[in-house]
């Protein structure tokens, strides 16, 4: 062993611990097509399920005739709500305290709603069966506008809860009203607005979109009638929660359910919820005694599984004439579709929308959110975002721009004079959060300098002159954003989903030869957990990351946890990982002291070993300690070396960032070209810079999509107009710009390793940055607000409306 000759730095480098751009261990499988995704699972005798879906957005179902379908070769069963009703499974609870039809129970509430489930021997026979099922519908009036849904004479959508006075989140005032959620001080905010020098007011719409992971949702359910054990493989971002919910609604004891999330082809929030396909597959497997696979196609994914956003945010922002913000007011109308199936912590029916004061020191604020039913798909999930943080960030970053216009101020300067100062942390926000740490001024100044902000503004002035002189038809926009996220849900005292506390977990077992396995309550969907969590352990206990296996997603083996979404894996499970590792290190210290024949306090941890204080040549490596832990009788110490930690975070974490992009806009075609994009992220301690950068690239590209073209659009009849990838914009390598990434590091003071989470930051900050750039280009012509997505047609219309084609 060359341990004595290597410097501590060399030994640390060999561990590939925190801070190392370690190559991903997952990639060896994925690059040669050896992933194991849910559709790769093939079991003996496996059947396929497929849905009959409603072509109507609102209709009574007056009859379902399966006779012809059952004659189709290979079709074994057609399941309807009537079949599920005796089991109590024709409806299921949503994660938001509402309930949702599994299969149409007398009516349908959105186009694409599940009406019947056809079970057949293969996917083609199932599709034939779907074609042959005859359903009689009686059309009902359709409501796709949430404001019209609240009009007195609007049709009652949810007849199952008609005339109720109280919903899951308090009183309701209309049959189509789901909740009102209020935060902050209404009277004080309105008083500030009434007295203010300046009040800027705007309606900011964040359109409906969809996470659209490349792999759609699906599952394989297998009921073993001999053992009574149900195994459910699926695209689950929260496998443990799925097991608990499956147990509660099916009555099968939790120990008899094994939920396995295999490799997941991207989630982005789409795979948090529980979908009718899962319930129907389980029932079909119980009925037939065979495994049943259900995998939705892309159109089903876009039409029926969880959408995101669809928030109408009416804002008022008050300021002094010098631009010091004095108050913020927001009323949001939230369109949830036919069922409230968002996945927010119970006490937060509008998620963390109350982070909408953003990066700014705003003394007083008020937020109210009204949830509304419409004839659209259910949901309201956080698409690469921590529970409505994207909406909040978009709102405040647009309001800042609108205020800058009203004040005639530079928007960068307006931000700077309103930032929360570094010495104000921990900072108590007007809407109830305690921001853990931040240094916004440093990040902002670094970003402005990096892009030569003054130079860009000078160039923009010149471009405008040229445009007005008829020398060019292209305008230049500079998009600014400084966002603050709130992630890592969360403290059990105020964060639960369906009563399940949002802690997370890690179990580490060191093998006698000094390698290890760790299991977590989270599940990677591309984030590289197997790579990064091993790095945390490597640094904490001094064993090489390459010798540590990571496992997630199997509820029979992994410790209980709430899964991966809301950028919570690193803040919560990452903390659990560090804490479990520290328990192991504490035991290793006692073993080392025994082996070195000194007192416990006389040894100290040194990268990959414990050494006697003041005598570094006397040491035991962690590998030696691991072997001794199993194979040497040590008085007073149990054999073995393993630990588990369930971590209940004391607070959320608050990553932030400064983004600046430059866009050139052809006013005659509406085409936009992102010339440059600079992204500075501060996610606290950085575990793997390569992976962080990859997360930023990906999140920015999802932001580009959302800001510039991606939407779930409906016509007046409730038809989905964007149900395929022909209409639903996913950027290709051709449209996607090159990104420049940068960082500052402000560790979280309450997280064991100071990490804050990063996966969602680029989406949260990216959308307002792209959108602000488009707005900025048109600012000299009087534009204050135009709704996303800024596709070519809408941008052209904006130019037209502003008289730029005359």
């Amino acid at each position, binding site marked *: 062993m060359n341990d004595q000759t290597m410097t501590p730095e060399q030994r640390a480098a060999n561990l590939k611990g925190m801070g190392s751009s370690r190559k991903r261990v997952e990639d060896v499988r994925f690059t040669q097509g050896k992933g194991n995704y849910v559709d790769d699972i093939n079991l003996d005798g496996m059947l396929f399920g497929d849905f009959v879906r409603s072509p109507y957005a609102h209709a009574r179902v007056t009859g379902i005739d399966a006779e012809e379908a059952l004659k189709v070769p290979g079709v074994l069963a057609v399941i309807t709500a009537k079949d599920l009703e005796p089991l109590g499974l024709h409806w299921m609870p949503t994660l938001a305290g509402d309930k949702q039809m599994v299969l149409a129970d007398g009516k349908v509430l959105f186009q694409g709603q599940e009406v019947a489930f056809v079970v057949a021997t293969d996917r083609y026979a199932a599709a034939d069966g779907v074609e042959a099922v005859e359903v009689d519908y009686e059309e009902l009036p359709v409501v796709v506008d949430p404001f019209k849904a609240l009009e007195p004479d609007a049709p009652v959508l949810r007849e199952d809860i008609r005339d109720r006075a109280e919903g899951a989140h308090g009183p309701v005032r209309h049959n189509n009203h789901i909740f009102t959620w209020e935060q902050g001080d209404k009277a004080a905010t309105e008083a500030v607005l009434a007295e203010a020098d300046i009040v800027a007011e705007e309606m900011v719409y964040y359109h409906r979109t969809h996470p659209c992971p*490349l792999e759609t949702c699906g599952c394989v359910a297998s009921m073993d009638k001999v053992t009574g054990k149900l195994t459910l493989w699926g695209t689950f971002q929260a496998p443990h929660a799925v097991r608990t919910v499956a147990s509660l609604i099916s009555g099968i004891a939790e120990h008899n359910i094994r939920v396995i999330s295999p490799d997941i082809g991207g989630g982005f929030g789409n795979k948090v919820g529980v979908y009718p396909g899962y319930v129907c597959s389980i029932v079909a497997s119980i009925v037939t005694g065979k495994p049943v696979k259900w995998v939705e196609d892309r159109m089903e994914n876009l039409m029926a599984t969880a959408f995101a956003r669809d928030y109408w945010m009416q804002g008022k922002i008050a300021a002094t004439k010098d631009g010091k913000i004095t108050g913020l007011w927001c009323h949001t109308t939230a369109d949830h579709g036919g069922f409230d199936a968002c996945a927010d912590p119970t006490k937060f029916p509008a998620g963390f929308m109350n982070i909408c004061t953003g990066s700014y020191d705003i003394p007083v604020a008020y937020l109210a959110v009204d949830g509304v039913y419409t004839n659209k798909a259910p949901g309201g999930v956080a698409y690469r975002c921590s529970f409505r943080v994207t909406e909040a960030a978009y709102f405040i970053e647009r309001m800042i721009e609108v205020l800058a216009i009203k004040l005639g101020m530079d928007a960068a300067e307006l931000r700077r004079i309103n930032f929360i100062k570094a010495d104000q942390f921990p900072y108590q926000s007007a809407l109830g959060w305690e921001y853990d740490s931040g240094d916004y001024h440093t990040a902002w100044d670094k970003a402005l300098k990096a892009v030569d902000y003054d130079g860009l503004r000078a160039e923009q002035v010149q471009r405008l002159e040229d445009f007005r002189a008829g020398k060019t038809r292209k305008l230049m926009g500079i998009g600014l954003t400084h966002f603050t996220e709130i992630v890592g849900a969360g403290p059990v005292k105020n964060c639960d989903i369906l009563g399940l506390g949002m802690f997370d977990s890690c179990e580490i077992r060191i093998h006698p030869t000094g390698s290890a396995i760790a299991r977590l309550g989270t599940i990677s969907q591309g984030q590289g957990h197997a790579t990064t969590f091993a790095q945390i352990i490597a640094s904490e206990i001094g064993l090489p990351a390459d010798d540590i296996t990571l496992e997630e997603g199997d509820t029979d083996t992994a410790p209980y946890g709430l899964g991966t979404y809301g950028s919570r894996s690193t803040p919560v499970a990452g903390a659990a990982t560090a804490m479990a590792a520290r328990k192991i290190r504490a035991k290793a210290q006692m073993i080392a002291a025994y082996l070195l024949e000194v007192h416990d306090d006389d040894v100290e941890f040194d990268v990959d070993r414990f050494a006697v204080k003041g005598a570094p040549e006397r040491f035991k490596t962690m590998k030696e300690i691991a072997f001794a832990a199993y194979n040497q009788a040590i008085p007073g110490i149990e054999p073995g070396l393993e630990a588990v930690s369930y971590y209940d975070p004391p607070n959320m974490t608050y990553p932030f960032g400064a983004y600046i992009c430059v866009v050139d806009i052809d006013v005659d075609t509406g085409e936009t070209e992102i010339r440059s994009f600079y992204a500075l992220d501060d996610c606290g301690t950085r575990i793997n810079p390569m992976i962080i950068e990859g997360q930023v690239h990906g999140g920015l590209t999802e932001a580009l999509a959302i800001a510039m073209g991606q939407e779930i659009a409906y016509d007046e009849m409730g038809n989905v107009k964007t149900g395929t990838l022909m209409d639903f914009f996913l950027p*290709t*390598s051709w449209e996607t710009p090159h990104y420049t990434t940068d960082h500052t590091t402000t560790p979280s003071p309450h997280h064991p390793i100071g990490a804050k989470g990063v996966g969602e930051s680029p989406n949260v900050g990216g959308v307002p940055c792209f959108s602000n750039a488009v707005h900025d280009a048109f600012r000299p012509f009087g534009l204050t607000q135009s709704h996303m997505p800024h596709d070519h047609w809408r941008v052209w219309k904006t130019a037209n409306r502003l008289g730029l084609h005359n």
Partner: protein
Amino acid sequence: MTKMHVKMTVNGEAAEGLAEPRTLLIHFLRETLKIKGPHIGCETTHCGACTVDLNGKSVKSCTVFVGQANGAEITTVEGLVNADGSLGVIQEMFREHHGLQCGFCTPGMITRAHRLLQENPMPTEEEVRFGMAGNLCRCTGYQNIVKAIMAAAETLNAQKEAAE
């Protein structure tokens, strides 16, 4: 439905099976031949997760009938590993440059990149971005995919020069 007898060469090995004429090539590969590298992302030719090499051209196997591939030479991502089982150059460069995250688009991406570099062994960044535009990725933002393919081109060209 009557089934037809289909034969093809997949990754250098003879393969055959019975399939309904309407069977899509992707389903035949994945479910009959158990070649699960190519994935299904959209079933409408948009996403490219199912990309395979068919007689020297990149095709989206979700919109090819198995009958159209009868007698064809097919290469999938599984066929791009080296003879000793180690990662091929493009695969290695995707790993080296973090050109993948969830891995779902990766088999199609790598198979398309393989063909692109046959068609154009020394592409510019712009040519890579254009040549890969039929393959969607939701995770990476493409920057590192482009980097990986450019690096693979360089390595492959250096290998070719060394061999000559």
